[in-house]
């Protein structure tokens, strides 16, 4: 199946991917050493790593023959932007609702 691009929320919705991020938050690791922490097959782990890489949560650096995974901030920033957006969003919408309701009383 073609690897589809997931957004930040979908990426971290998966427990295995969260665990990969957790492991990488301690130190950068090779794909092989990450795979050792999971029951699933190495290709399955690779697939999760690819998802994390595509979404900007990690970067992969080739050092010699090994592929090293390192945490990257971009993916986390996207999550943060969404929440900031919604907080601001509801704040301004509710202000408007309050104004409408106030008008309604004054018109009586």
């Amino acid at each position: 199946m073609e690897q589809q691009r997931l957004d930040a929320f979908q990426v971290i919705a998966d427990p295995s991917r969260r665990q990969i991020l957790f492991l990488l938050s301690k130190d950068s690791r090779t794909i092989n050493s990450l795979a050792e922490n999971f029951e699933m097959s190495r290709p399955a782990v690779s697939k999760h790593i690819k998802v994390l890489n595509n979404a900007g949560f990690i970067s992969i650096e080739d050092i010699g023959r090994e592929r090293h995974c390192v945490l990257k901030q971009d993916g986390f920033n996207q999550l943060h932007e969404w929440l900031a957006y919604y907080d601001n969003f509801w704040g301004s919408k509710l202000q408007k609702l309050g104004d409408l309701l106030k008008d309604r009383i004054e018109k009586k």
Partner: protein
Amino acid sequence: MAKIIKYDLFFPNPPEVVWEYLTDADLIALWLMKNNFKPILGYEFQVTTKPMPDIQFDGIFYCKVLAIEPLKSLSYSWHFGPGDGTLNTSVVDWTLTPLNNGTQLELIHRGFEGASFIDLFTGMSTGWPKQIQKLLLTINPETDGTAKA
């Protein structure tokens, strides 16, 4: 999943009036956005605004009425995405309580999949891997238990 966004407001209007503004599509459009809401359990509706490519949003909130108790509470799903068929999930809950000749209105926007730890990311420019560690543990306490390491 933890509550993410919560507002508590008081309006000097009776619950009947506030309820109208939460459940009548034309009135909702006055303060929220264009929509085709109907106050029917299970009803699917859309709320539309302008697309925001910066945050990968196609401008459409895909919603469904999850619970409705007239004059008291209303809950709908609030899904959004980049427009390629993939959607983020979240839920919006409204609760009305009569209070001092007015209405206490509570809004909770919750259930952002996996996002309960976002606020921990603010100011993470230094030492942020440590914070990620902490919050991944918070949302998923079994993390270490499932690891063979």
